[in-house]
């Protein structure tokens, strides 16, 4: 009877050890998944274009002009480049497509230059030099009743 009891004891112990191991590994995996779920925002704001009125004097007659736009969601004014080439107006987002720094306009060379890694774009937003691959994002421009509206998603 004692032999039988010992046998039961060893199998019981082995089983309990497996339960303990399972509990620890399960709870650690559970914690990692829980962490990822909690860190991820439940509904990140959808990016939709909102249109803002741009007054006449801010629109360049020729070339590039930097304009300030006050948005509802962002507390600080943002900058957008308005470019008029061959009669049509395009709006370029200043966000460099490489790593998200804001590009500056250089009047002498008529290029947009990114201060981070030296990416260069021409006035249509196409890449001339540097690490970026995609052109600068073109923001939608709406003209209604001869008034210019600029779409910004942020």
């Amino acid at each position, binding site marked *: 009877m004692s032999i039988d009891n010992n046998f039961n004891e060893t199998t019981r112990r082995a089983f309990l050890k497996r339960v303990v191991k399972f509990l620890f590994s399960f709870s650690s995996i559970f914690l990692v998944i829980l962490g990822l779920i909690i860190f991820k925002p439940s509904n990140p704001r959808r990016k939709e274009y909102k249109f803002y009125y741009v007054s006449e004097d801010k629109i360049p007659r020729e070339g590039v002009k930097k304009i300030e736009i006050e948005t509802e969601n962002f507390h600080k004014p943002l900058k957008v480049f308005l470019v008029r080439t061959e009669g049509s107006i395009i709006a370029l987002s200043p966000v460099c497509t490489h790593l998200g720094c*804001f590009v500056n306009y250089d009047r002498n060379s008529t290029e947009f230059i990114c*201060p981070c*890694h030296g990416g260069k774009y021409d006035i249509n937003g196409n890449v001339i030099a540097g690490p*970026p691959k995609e052109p600068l994002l073109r923001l939608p421009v709406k003209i209604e009743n001869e008034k210019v509206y600029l779409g910004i998603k942020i």
Partner: protein
Amino acid sequence: MKKKFYPDYLIEILFFAILTFEVILILAFVFPPLIGREIDFLAAYQPRPEWYYLWLFWVLRFFSTDTVFIGGLLLPLGIIAFLIFIPWLEKKIGWSLTALIGLVFFLLFIIATIIEAIQ
């Protein structure tokens, strides 16, 4: 006479702890921290990381948009993996070869930091 941890070694440790404190205090007095400019999306600004990330910032120059993660993430992770496996790597290929690989990474760190800093 054999050195004991207490008090022979501990007093040396405490001496260096106090020396470190003095160096930190002098640096904090001579080079006080600055308040940066307030966030402004209009002004032209050249972003720069802290000095120990400058090398990574410089490396990213050579990776275009769709390969940024290779230079910015896989390279540092590779260096970390190399460092972690040094005890086993050293057994396989010998100390001097391991030291050579380590030296290459260290020189990359030093030279890239200097290049980015003097710009």
